[in-house]
């Protein structure tokens, strides 16, 4: 394993310390190290709290700031945070208007955030609602199983709901909005290499020099199938046609196209993928109104990318364009 670290067991806290020092104008790291919070809270605003396993940087701490999250709770690498982190975060950023948890659909995250919500309302009387994101098309949706994973689309939910919270929307309406954005969002990822969890010290999976993994998750979970490496255009076609099919009637709305790198994929390839995805979507008559290209929801050092499409209703488009000032996303301020 080759990484810039001192010791796997302290890597997360050292990285967080670096992050907080680098962005001291936007965020503060709680003295306990349990959460990162927005430096200046806005009184009377619903507090948005997210979190999850680390290793997906800049998600979530990179999205703490004006117009997006109020706090992010980083778990160990690929391990959801523990309830005490979210409880402390609620105590740290709730200004009375209640808290909305934005949770990616993994049982670990869901259970830990559930427990935190229970504890926060029992202990502190906080009002907590949740939005669970599950945009990953690679997994079949079902109420009898874990269902779809929350992946890069989570960023879209955080941005749009964050803008609405900043504008003063109340807790219930924010939850409804978050669910609506999530329902309008689909993602699909492919990997060229595995990632290596620092504490594990070796790659999560082996993959041949001419192979790729289709439908991979953001933890190096094996995907839907293993296949031969194909061209960017072929990948884009397979992904985008699937997404458009799943979006159904929503495909006639203007869409946001997010091409997301998994951590080890250079920007040159991501823009090439953007180009390939755009061609397919335009051929299908989809109107790409907004886009974002970069490594935003990553899997440590995995080479790969995902494509996310959100069908933007009118309010969502306006909220997407709203000012945001975080470490990883900045617009209009």
């Amino acid at each position, binding site marked *: 394993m080759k990484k810039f670290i001192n010791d796997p067991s302290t890597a997360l806290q050292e990285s967080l310390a670096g992050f907080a020092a680098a962005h001291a104008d936007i965020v503060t790291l709680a003295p306990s190290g349990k959460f990162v919070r927005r430096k200046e809270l806005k009184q009377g605003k619903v507090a948005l709290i997210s979190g999850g396993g680390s290793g997906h940087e800049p998600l979530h701490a990179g999205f703490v700031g004006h117009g997006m999250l109020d706090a992010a709770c980083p778990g160990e690498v*690929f391990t959801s945070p*523990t309830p005490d982190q979210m409880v402390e975060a609620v105590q740290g950023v709730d200004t009375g208007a209640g808290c909305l948890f934005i949770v990616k659909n993994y049982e670990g995250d869901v*259970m830990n955030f559930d427990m935190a919500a229970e504890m926060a309302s029992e202990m502190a009387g906080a009002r907590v609602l949740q939005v669970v994101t599950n945009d990953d098309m690679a997994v079949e949706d079902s109420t009898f199983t*874990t269902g779809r994973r929350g992946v890069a689309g989570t960023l879209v939910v955080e941005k749009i709901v964050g803008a609405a919270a900043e504008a003063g929307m109340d807790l219930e309406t924010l939850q409804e909005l978050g669910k609506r954005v999530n329902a309008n969002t689909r993602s699909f990822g492919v990997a060229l290499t595995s990632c290596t969890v620092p504490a*594990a010290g070796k790659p999560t999976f082996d993959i041949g020099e001419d192979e790729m993994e289709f439908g991979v998750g953001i933890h190096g979970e*094996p995907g839907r199938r293993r296949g031969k490496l194909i061209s960017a255009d072929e990948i884009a076609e397979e992904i985008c046609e699937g997404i458009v099919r799943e979006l159904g009637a929503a495909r006639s709305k203007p869409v946001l196209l997010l091409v997301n790198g998994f951590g080890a994929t250079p920007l040159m390839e991501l823009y090439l993928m953007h180009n390939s995805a755009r061609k397919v979507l335009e051929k299908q008559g989809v109107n790409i109104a907004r886009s974002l290209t970069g490594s935003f929801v990553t899997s440590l050092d995995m080479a790969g990318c995902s494509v996310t499409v959100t069908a933007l209703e009118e309010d969502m488009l306006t909220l997407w364009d709203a000012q945001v000032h975080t470490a990883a996303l900045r617009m209009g301020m």
Partner: protein
Amino acid sequence: MSKTMTRLTSEDMKALIGAMQAAIAENAERLTALDQAIGDGDHGINMKRGFDAIAADADAICDKPTPQALSAAGMKLVMSVGGASGPLFGTLFMTLGKSLPEDFECGAFADAFAKAVDAVAARGKSSAGQKTMLDVLYPVSDALAAGKSVGEVAAVAAEAAEATVPMEAKRGRASFLGERSIGHMDPGSCSCSLLVNTIAAWISAKEHAA
């Protein structure tokens, strides 16, 4: 498990914690490898973090009566493990603590264990046959209820863990794999079996020594 009333002393509990911590530490790499195959490759690391946290606080935990000690250990797991296994193993220990009288015999333990397993299923919105730790916990619960010997219970756990290999996962990260989850042992089931076997070995050794 003996049919007579049992009360675990503080020393007993410390010894048990030490045994579990050691068993998890020795098997952490294996558990992680199982999780790399069908999950995200952190199960051994998670379990080790949890049992190390319990062991670090063993003095305070074992000062309490057994039920409260179990609850405290469960809360430690919840607050240190994270992931799916944290809330689930935490709920198991916490509910066991809540349901167990201070002095207990075999039947009471079996009852409390059954409640604890149900609480795990409720927390995980899961049930038997989904290739999760429940596929070890339910058979163990049944074996306890049937009054089997510790050796028998340990064997049941080991077999049950083995039996998760051909299953298709419906819950947990392995469910994302669908059919590709078949052919691998469920990591959480493996740790359950490991813990049951560790406890069983400790009890046998103690009974033997007595």
